[in-house]
């Protein structure tokens, strides 16, 4: 609650500083605005920057470091026998303390030492909040007065404000890089911890996957087996089925819409196809699990086939439908980019339209189409909700599409949803799977984007 107050006070002060700076500048010009180097608004912004940015930085640092400092302070006050515990137990203890302090748990059944710690926790947090409030308030006021002092007709406020603006722009543009670094580091860091417990050879080449077996603590990583081959195979199977559905339908629709369709039909059909891409994947998952899978199972039963109700086929087909618009819209762009001269040349030789498409346009557009298919594959591999809802949970090394298989994303979700301990091989395995997923999709995307870009350059 207190942090909201700080922000409101800060915003109010900043606005006040802005108004004051602007008015001061107008006054300093003595009625001749042309005397000012910068427009009054820049003087106002200059004061506002002084008022807000240092305070925001401090708040940011505070938010990051506060939990750590408060935890250390509270733990150091605990009785000695409680302090000599493992890190995991201490974390659990701190959780109790925090919950009691927040009033989430009744204090009746708690350990008295924990209750004392909870009181101490609230006290320290309160002190920290007050200290932060006072510090920020002072900093903002000092910034404000400092900023105002600089205002003078010849003061180059605009140059300085624009410089700060430029720095902000540069910071914003590096966030994407920071995100990538964050992803790579967090995945690699946790994966290394996983590979300390399970060798990479076992992970990448083992045929047995049953992480849930490890129930007792001394059993972790010794009995639970982490051979990921069945998962990779399952992912490949479902993605393959999805591609069998998506590539012909997507490509043929692209060809039809780009080459044959009347412009009115195209204007209606294309946005409708794109709707398929806009529907949330959880909806596809629901449809796959509750409609397509039972339908396939029942119709398989009529034909004498035994189709599992979590068959790879159901998940794959529905995923294929989801991917159709990706392939069709990308291929459509690629096909329309083929120069008209190539079509004309082919017609001139007496080829029919379909012969032109099959022998001239598609070969010319092939790199772009391959790129779009690669992007679609990477989408299929990384797709989560459809398979979580419609595919199986148990790892099953099979190429039979009627059986239930599991995928990388399904395993990540099942390993990480629910209660988790952060040092068990089970949860860390999810990060190793995540790293594999990230690496594979990154390669596919990289190649696909390169191919598409090269192709575009060729005809532009």
């Amino acid at each position, binding site marked *: 609650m207190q942090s909201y107050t700080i922000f409101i006070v800060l915003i109010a002060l900043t606005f006040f500083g802005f108004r004051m700076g602007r008015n001061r500048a107008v006054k300093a010009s003595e009625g001749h605005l042309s005397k000012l180097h910068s427009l009054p608004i820049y003087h106002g912004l200059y004061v506002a920057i002084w008022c807000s940015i240092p305070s925001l930085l401090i708040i940011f640092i505070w938010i990051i470091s506060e939990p750590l400092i408060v935890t250390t302070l509270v733990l150091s006050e605990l009785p000695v026998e409680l302090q000599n515990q493992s890190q995991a137990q201490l974390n659990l203890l701190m959780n109790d303390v925090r919950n009691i302090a927040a009033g989430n748990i009744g204090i009746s059944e708690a350990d008295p030492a924990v209750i004392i710690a909870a009181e101490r926790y609230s006290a320290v947090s309160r002190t920290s909040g007050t200290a932060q409030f006072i510090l920020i308030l002072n900093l903002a006021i000092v910034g404000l007065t400092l900023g105002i002092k600089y205002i003078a007709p010849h003061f180059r406020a605009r140059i300085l404000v624009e410089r700060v603006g430029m720095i902000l722009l540069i910071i*914003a543009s590096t*966030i*994407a890089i920071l995100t990538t670094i964050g992803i790579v580091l967090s995945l690699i860091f946790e994966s290394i911890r996983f590979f300390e417990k399970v060798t990479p050879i076992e992970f990448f080449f083992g045929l047995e996957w049953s992480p849930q077996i490890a129930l007792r603590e001394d059993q972790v990583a010794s009995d639970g087996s982490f051979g990921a081959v069945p998962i990779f195979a399952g992912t490949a199977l479902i993605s393959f089925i999805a591609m069998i559905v998506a590539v012909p339908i997507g490509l043929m629709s692209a060809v039809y819409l780009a080459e044959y369709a009347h412009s009115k039909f195209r204007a209606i059909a294309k946005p409708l196809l794109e709707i398929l891409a806009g529907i949330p994947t*959880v909806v596809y998952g*629901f449809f796959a699990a509750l409609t397509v899978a039972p339908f396939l199972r029942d119709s398989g039963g009529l034909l004498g086939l035994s189709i599992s109700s979590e068959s790879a086929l159901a998940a794959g087909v529905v995923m294929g439908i989801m991917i159709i618009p990706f392939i069709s819209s990308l291929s459509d762009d690629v096909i329309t980019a083929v120069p008209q001269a190539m079509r004309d040349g082919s017609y001139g030789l007496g080829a029919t339209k379909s012969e032109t498409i099959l022998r001239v346009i598609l070969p010319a557009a092939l790199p772009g189409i391959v790129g779009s298919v690669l992007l679609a594959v*990477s989408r299929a591999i990384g797709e*989560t909700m459809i398979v*979580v809802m419609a595919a199986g949970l148990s790892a099953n090394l099979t190429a039979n599409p009627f059986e239930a298989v599991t995928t990388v994303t399904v395993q990540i979700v099942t390993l990480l949803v629910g209660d988790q301990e952060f040092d068990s091989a089970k949860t860390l395995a999810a990060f190793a799977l995540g790293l594999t997923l990230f690496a594979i999709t990154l390669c596919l995307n990289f190649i696909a984007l390169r191919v598409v870009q090269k192709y575009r350059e060729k005809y532009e």
Partner: protein
Amino acid sequence: MNDTIMDSGLRPSRETANIVRRGLKKRYAAEQRFKLYGLLAVCAALAFLVIMLGNIIYKGHTAFIQTEVKLEIYFDEDVIDPTGKRDEQTLRGADYGRLIKTSLRKQFPNVQKRRDKRKLYRIVSAGSPFELYRMVQKDPSLIGKTQAIWISAAANIDILNKGGIDTTRPETERRVNNKEISWYENLREAGLIRADFNTRFFTAGDSRDPEQAGVLGAVIGSLLTLAITLLLSFPFGVMAAIYLEEFAPQNRWTDIIEVNINNLAAVPSIVFGLLGLAVFLNFFGLPRSAPLVGGMVLALMTLPTIIIASRAALKSVPPSIREAALGVGASRMQVVTDHVAPLAMPGILTGTIIGMARALGESAPLLMIGMVAFIVDVPQSPTDPATVLPVQVYLWADSPERAFVERTSAAIIVLIGFLVCMNLTAQILRQKFEKHW
């Protein structure tokens, strides 16, 4: 050699012409076939769309109606508040279930066996005592009075009333037995059953009882999450786009950023969830299941979309605008803030809304940061535990209760309704304000 080519090229001999003519029919047939395949592909894709949406609407439209039972309830003071203090604690702790049971017993005096009675009590929703508590809380003067009240029916009776149960099937294969059906018929003939608009679905949080469950908690959770996402991704996305499009020098660093943004746009969403789990939850210790963290994760995910859309919008502003502004003495920053960015704003907003719509439908990364908990309360602030609409769909779809199927479909309808609104807004923005130079 040369002669023959020239000859056949200019004046095809009768023989060649015959070969071509003989093949023509086949080639035209192939042409028609090919065209048909294309049309079939488009139709197949559209048919899938129609089947899926039709199926969901068919399954879900009944959830907007809720069956109710009219009961004469005597608000017995001895049961609710024997001491007459009327304080919050007593009112909340009272056994409202007994009032309903008494009323049901009065309605069906013939039901005597213990087992039958228990079945009888299950005609009304397990959450109905709470409905009574709400009424008494609002108006304590009810105590001591008798009033006829419409109470939500239990899920099975609800399905029965909507015709979802085939009464001709043998009793053991049905979810409701003959006795329950006879009670239901009895009530219906007495005019004590009605089907009303299901307001609870829009005003309640999640519940284990399908007839008490609503989407409000999830909708508010989604709105809070989206607000955080927008607050973070819009300013940073637009600023990054402005830098890359207007100021960045053509060098290696800029190239790296560009490649990086394009790749980030295609990273599977679940990987962002792993990032959120490892960095925001475990490293920074932010609260689990909170819209704050969900919004941060989704912001990182939508950032590339917004950057790419904003760059396209900035690029479409013709250079003459920039040159004119520079010509009258604006600084490069002023050119952007006063001229280029406002002109590009419709395009930027369109891209942002589309990015937001995608974030609204996203659920995989939110599973990673614990937004899948069963949460009854409607979240009040971005740090309260919450869930979002698509995750609510996932949770209900997993539920074994049959009555949740129609609610899941109804939640999907609500979700798609939001998405349609957002996309329409984007469309209108694009058509109304986007300039074509």
